[in-house]
């Protein structure tokens, strides 16, 4: 095999290096010889040298994480108050935009109650897995609120809900049977997610997080196929109100169960006769049946109040 000039030069140089650094070790087979055996310390280096510290950026400080939980709790409280007491569509929309900004675009969508289902499932089954208190709080707080007041989290706080709420353009009423059938999908998804999460560590898969349709938008980066799926959800969401929330969101499934027990929730003009049905037409989520809000399906958007001739601005005009 002919030796190319470059290789020859290299070999000569390496031989030189080895001679320089390792003294008599010139016969070594290794083409590159480690120049030193131990790291020289400050005393060997001399001339007042001090070892620079290694940069160790700390994770987000703990009180900021606690702040997230506090903000979540406060936002849900405000959502309950705006919808049940103030009965204001405008303000609850403003709240959800604010939460979209904070929990979505600023906090980049993690950690969220939807994904925390998996952590809780793993923590309950795997004794070695522990979940931070913050994640536990994020999972249980919206459920507790739903137990007493319905799905206040969905309407005013959830960034995934808010981004879909903003694109609702011309919603069609999904036929009730189809709506029910599609609604079962989220329970299948919930079961699948829990099943994949409780696998042993190596096979464990957090499928909800992996196929979160909107987190790519929140982070302004992500895998192309997920961005397309997210965009598809938003396009469909123009004509079918909040498709992810109603048909796929596994946490929505849990909230649906829990909010069946809720003592309070959205009620349309409870002290007046109902006859016009404008609210039923206004609700993009098919959550009003017989002119009464169905608690498990009601997403706390407060549109029904805004469209009611006996409520708020419309009542004041007439």
């Amino acid at each position: 095999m002919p030796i190319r000039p470059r290789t020859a030069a290299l070999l000569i140089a390496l031989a030189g290096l080895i001679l320089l650094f390792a003294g008599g070790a010139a016969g070594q087979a290794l083409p590159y010889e480690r120049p030193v055996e131990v790291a020289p310390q400050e005393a060997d280096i001399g001339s007042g040298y001090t070892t620079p510290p290694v940069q160790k950026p700390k994770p987000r400080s703990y009180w900021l994480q606690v702040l997230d939980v506090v903000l979540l709790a406060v936002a849900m409280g405000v959502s309950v108050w705006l919808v049940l007491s103030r009965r204001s569509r405008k303000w609850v929309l403003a709240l959800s935009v604010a939460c979209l900004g904070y929990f979505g675009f600023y906090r980049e969508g993690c950690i969220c109650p939807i994904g925390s289902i998996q952590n809780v499932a793993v923590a309950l089954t795997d004794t070695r897995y522990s979940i931070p208190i913050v994640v536990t709080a994020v999972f249980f707080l919206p459920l507790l609120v739903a137990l007493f007041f319905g799905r206040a989290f969905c309407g005013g706080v959830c960034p995934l809900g808010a981004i879909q709420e903003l694109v609702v353009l011309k919603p069609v009423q999904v036929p009730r049977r189809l709506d029910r059938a599609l609604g079962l999908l989220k329970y299948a998804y919930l079961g699948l997610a829990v099943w994949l999460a409780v696998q042993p560590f190596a096979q464990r898969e957090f499928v909800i997080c992996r196929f979160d349709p909107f987190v790519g938008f929140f982070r302004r980066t992500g895998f192309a196929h997920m961005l397309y799926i997210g965009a598809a959800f938003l396009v469909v969401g123009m004509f079918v109100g909040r498709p992810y929330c109603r048909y796929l969101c596994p946490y929505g499934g849990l909230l649906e169960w829990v909010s069946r027990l809720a003592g309070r929730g959205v009620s349309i003009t409870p002290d007046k006769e109902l006859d016009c049905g404008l609210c039923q037409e206004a609700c993009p989520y098919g959550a009003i049946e017989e002119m009464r809000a169905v608690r498990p399906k009601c997403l706390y958007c407060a549109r029904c109040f805004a469209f009611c001739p006996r409520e708020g601005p419309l009542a004041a005009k007439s």
Partner: protein
Amino acid sequence: MSDDMTRRGALAKAARGAAALALGGAAFHLVRKAEGQIVWNVDPALCINSRLGETGVEVCGLCTTECVVSQSAVRAVNEFSKCGRCNICPAYFNVTSAVNEKGLPSEKLCPRDAIERKPIGEVDPDDPANNFYEYVIDEIKCDGCGKCVMACKEPLGLGSIQLRVRHSLCVDCNRCAISIACPKDAIEHVPSERAFDHVQLGSHP
């Protein structure tokens, strides 16, 4: 009628109370075994780039390509106290490239030129073996490709460079995308106080 209503009301209240208790109990159980703040971390003893004995293999660049952050939150870190401060650093230079007129390899190893070579003290041109250099990795440029980690690994280097998750950049995904892809399951979820230990690779065969 009103009797029925109150019975329904009482039942609803009881169901609500039971559900609240169940949720609270589960939450309490989880809080009791909680371990503070948990972060993603690269275990250098498992990472193919720094793991001892993994020689003659391709550098694994999955930390660079799989992270959801556009420039990966995994970066190379040089533990200065372990660094040989060599004249010819195998992680800084491409030691298989042609030697230039200064007697140094002509090419650098880092594809993003993220390592800076700074002489320490006076440089004696006649005695290169006794000149020391500080190798500082530029956090802004590095994308965690791991080439320098592989090159610095013992026995050719001293193994002072390891890949680390920069927690100020990591967005704390619930399930780290790199951990799904990592062929050696080297991405672990650990309490934050354990994340900064420099692992003595010699003790992990």
